[in-house]
């Protein structure tokens, strides 16, 4: 039985890897979006008293 380079197994592994890559890219986008929202609306700004000191 010949071993083909493009076996069905390889396609499935590629699909799995591409799927995981897309999930990770999506996660990065979510974290980036959350960071932008939280920083721009001032969630992480120090209290006024801290700035004055």
């Amino acid at each position, binding site marked *: *039985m010949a*071993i083909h380079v493009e*076996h*069905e*197994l390889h396609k*499935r*592994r590629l*699909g*799995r890897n*591409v*799927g*995981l890559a897309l999930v990770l890219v999506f996660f990065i986008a*979510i974290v980036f*979006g*959350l960071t*932008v*929202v*939280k920083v721009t*609306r001032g969630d992480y700004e120090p209290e006024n008293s801290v700035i004055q000191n």
Partner: protein
Amino acid sequence: MSDASLNTNVQTQEAGFGDYFALLKPRVMSLVVFTAMVGLLAAPVAVHPMIAFASILFIAVGGGASGALNMWWDADIDAVMKRTQSRPIPSGKVTRDEAFAIGITLSVFACIMLGLAANLFAGALLAFTIFFYVVIYTMWLKRWTPQNIVIGGAAGAFPPMIGWAVATGGVSVESILMFTLTFMWTPPHFWALCLFMKSDYKDAGVPMLHVTHGRRVTRNHILVYTLLLAVVAVGMAFTGVGGPIYLTTALVLNGLFIAGAISIWRRDEEVAEADGYKREKSFFGLSLLYLFLHFGAILAEATLAPYGLGGW
């Protein structure tokens, strides 16, 4: 035959991305997403769309992770029941260890991320929900008592409370009532399924009510829980999340649901078997619509409220 021969059996068993995704029980996840979204949008505090989107996503991931842990623990039962034989573990595509690793990792990930994205209380409530579903329901109640689905139903009822907590950071009467709606809905929904699933649960040794107490008792229970559910569902119309749209929806749906439950209660097994459990199946179908439309009505009230149309 040579040493270089390929083991084709192993190849066909290797999981694809979709098999891992199936571990997360996508259909259950869609209910979690919808009810959590309604809980979030019905809350009296506005949430930034990005935070709302991320929170719902993390709630969905947490719900999916608990599904993976459920499949890890119940792999032996799933292999016996026809309804679950094609799941990734019994079909041999994913190993139990993989399911456990994915379930634990995603559970921790989802709770931490929800805590960071929304607030710590929402993250903690999601953690408790996963604990309740996996430990209290799956590991303890499911194989021990015929009340498994009654108490265990609480796990599926938490998502609207988590959605509400994302917006408000706490719990209120309205969020507890949304919890109660799903909690009271779960037993009649599941018992109707049990009636026409025949011997699946019996074969798997799961002490569902119809296995331990018989189908007559199950029919009685469906009617009682449907009547109790109607009180909760209609009563919710007069709270902060209710209004005329919700009241109309609740009255119509509960009327239909009670009629269905009475019809199931009046039948015996011979009659049901003769028509292929037609009434039980239609009651089960209606139960899906029931929950979707009740939460849909809550969503409609919340969406129309800013225009002076929703709510009382």
